[in-house]
């Protein structure tokens, strides 16, 4: 696949340069946490409440990092594009929930079924649940990959996307197994605390376990990537025909990588079930989860395990922050709303007009001194991007106007939609301008 950067570009050795990419990435994560904590302080939350909240961020970010590691193994290393990450995640979460929860019979109040019950009630130990979740997701990944692996990348993408949607329908409707739209509740925690600060202690335990799992996975995946097995995966990604010609059964390698990635996603699902204490077929397993994981791997740098983890913490951080800020932004906006909107429209309009005029001037007066300045700008593609950016600003202003016109009360929810739009913009910009991500894949040379 030509989609990932090849390692042929040999730059001069940069041994003594600071690792700016890493510094920027960690500074961004730190900034997100600080902003979230500040929002909590402004809301007047207790220190322990804020810490619990940060712990929640860390535990979900760890889960997303594991999802990203799984996808990185499939796509970053092997070039297999999975569009159904949410499906394997769902299988893991539900398997875990069914395996470890105590029996929960159907509830009927006054002849009306309130809760349909669900399969399971086996009360198995947590570790067994995790193993079962990984097995279930891994086997599902292998089965779905069997018909699609020999075909082009698009077929695998479509088949996995369809698989994930179907699974969500089943989770919603197959009540006797999944508990229907309510889902499965009462999933036991790793340790049941009884004291008043149980939420904090729970968050701390989950973060502790999650960090250990993540560290272990990182070391394991680094080792596997450096092993001959990992080398074959990268060879499959770069040129499958050549790898076949060298006598490797590429189909088997692809199947192994895809199933292993699926198993990692199942592990993430199992951790998710334990972290939340319940699973339901709601937005937790929506296609948006899949797209978020893509962004994480692309931002972090596909083919780089550390990058996948950084991407997970960064992109989930944005989501977490948008939830933290949701309560404050409308208040702040209500005061400055008209001003912001007006500024966006005026500035956007002037910028659009001037950018268009600049481009026209540069085209029609080729001899002027101005032209030379413009040529500099044009060489860097600044003019065109300037026009696009200015028009975007202008459009954003009008979005706010329309918003006030048609849905005045919806500004709080709008933050979520704007976040998802932002993820979309990020996907497009990254895939066009920086497909290698923040942390590039390490260059490997023959020794």
């Amino acid at each position, binding site marked *: 696949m030509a989609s990932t950067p090849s390692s042929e570009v040999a730059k001069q050795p940069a041994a003594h340069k600071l690792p700016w990419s890493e510094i920027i990435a960690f500074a961004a994560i730190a900034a997100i946490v600080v902003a979230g904590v500040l929002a909590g302080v402004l809301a007047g939350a207790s220190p322990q409440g804020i810490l619990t909240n940060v712990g929640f961020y860390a535990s979900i970010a760890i889960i997303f990092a594991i999802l990203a590691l799984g996808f990185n193994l499939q796509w970053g290393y092997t*070039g297999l594009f999975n569009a159904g990450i949410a499906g394997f995640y769902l299988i893991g979460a539900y398997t875990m929930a069914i395996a470890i929860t105590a029996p929960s019979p159907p509830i009927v109040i006054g002849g009306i079924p309130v809760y349909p019950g669900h399969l399971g009630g086996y009360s198995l130990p947590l570790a067994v649940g995790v193993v079962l979740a990984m097995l279930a997701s891994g086997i599902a990944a292998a089965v779905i990959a069997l018909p699609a692996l020999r075909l082009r990348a698009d077929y695998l993408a479509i088949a996995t996307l369809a698989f994930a949607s179907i699974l969500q329908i089943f989770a919603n409707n197959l009540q006797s197994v999944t508990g229907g739209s309510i889902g499965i509740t009462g999933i036991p925690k790793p340790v049941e605390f009884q004291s008043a600060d149980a939420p904090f202690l729970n968050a701390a335990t989950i973060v502790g376990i999650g960090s250990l799992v993540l560290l272990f996975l990182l070391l394991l995946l680094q080792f596997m990537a450096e092993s001959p097995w990992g080398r074959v995966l990268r060879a499959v990604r770069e040129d499958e025909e050549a790898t076949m010609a060298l006598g490797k059964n590429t189909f088997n390698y692809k199947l192994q990588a895809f199933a292993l990635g699926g198993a990692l996603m199942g592990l993430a699902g199992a951790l998710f079930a334990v972290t939340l204490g319940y699973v339901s077929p709601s937005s937790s397993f929506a296609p948006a989860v899949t*797209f978020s994981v*893509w962004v994480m791997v692309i931002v972090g740098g596909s083919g780089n395990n550390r990058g996948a983890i950084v991407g997970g913490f960064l992109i989930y951080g944005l989501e977490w922050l948008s939830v933290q800020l949701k309560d404050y932004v409308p208040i702040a906006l209500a005061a400055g709303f008209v001003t912001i909107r007006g500024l966006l429209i005026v500035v956007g309009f002037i910028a659009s007009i001037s950018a268009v005029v600049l481009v026209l001037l540069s085209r029609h007066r080729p001899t002027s001194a101005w032209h030379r300045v413009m040529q500099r700008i044009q060489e860097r593609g600044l003019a065109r991007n300037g026009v696009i950016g200015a028009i975007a600003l202008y459009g954003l202003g009008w979005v706010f106007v329309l918003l006030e016109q048609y849905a005045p009360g919806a500004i709080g929810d709008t933050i979520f939609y704007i976040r998802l739009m932002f993820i979309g913009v990020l996907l497009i910009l990254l*895939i066009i301008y920086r497909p290698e991500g923040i942390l590039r894949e390490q260059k490997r040379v023959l020794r």
Partner: protein
Amino acid sequence: MIAVAVVAGLAFVFGIIILQYAMGGLVVSSIVIVAAIGLTVLYGIRGFANFAYGDLMTLGAYLALLLSLNGLSLVWGAIVSFLVLAIVGILLEVVIFARLEGRGPVPPIVASVGVALIIQNGIRAVAGTTERIYPVPATENVVIVPGLGIHPISGILTLVVGISFVLSAHVLLKYTNLGKAMRATADNLELAKATGIDTKRVTYAAWVVSSSFASTAGILLGLGTAVKPTMGFDVLLLIFAAVIVGGIGSPYGAMLGGLMVGLSQEMSVPFLVWLERPDVIGLQFGSAYKVAIPFIILIIVLIFRPWGIAGRRPAFARRSYFIERITRTLAGERGAIDTSPGEANGGR
């Protein structure tokens, strides 16, 4: 003749109700076919699966809604939306997808998901998440025979528009120079360039056809049910299934695939309702699973004929892992019993 006989036979065996489901299937098919032609034309020429296609449909539906709520009739709304979507298609190519040419199938897929997220959530932010319906006069079903009716707008109109779009796509592809150039480019880009076809122009034409068909399909979909932000993304898989079943990149395959997928989805409903009965397996919400039927067909086609039902078999098509194992086992077993094992692998 055969069709009439099949219809009469079905009605005789299962009752007139099966024809009602078949009618529903035909209506769904005509929407899916319009969308599938648009998706597959773009795939043939640009070589990537456009995951934003469902949301282009939603965008078209909302544009028509916006215009029809502001005084224009829905017909004019549909025409304006058709034209606007054509421009949106060209803009998408110029601003985003032209930069990703020659980087394999995955980067454009990622970018198209980005476009999908922007359109879907932009619509949510601007128009809200409530379901809307088009301001069309409320009408009763037209009764053909007792027990078999069709709605004049969401039924007859959809069928007529669907058929006219199929015919116009056929005329465009078969009888115009542009259509011939499009088919040539889809067949072999390098060869088309070498024979002097302006492939850039063909690419833009493909975007225009693709996204304007999306607009009309979206409006038809909105007429049938309601207009909501996820309407397009929800049917995307159905359209992908139609495209793949018919053979990816082939407009005529898309027509066949759309028919198969739409009919099978709707006609599976009585079967799924039958499964709901306690003496069968007591399935809950059986008809919710109807969307899984196209997916099952998709998987079967991927296993047995990945180049599609109507598609041409590639010269060096590798057989799927499954088939290879199955034929080997079968051939081995048959070899022991039958005296002519040579036939087992010979069929094309």
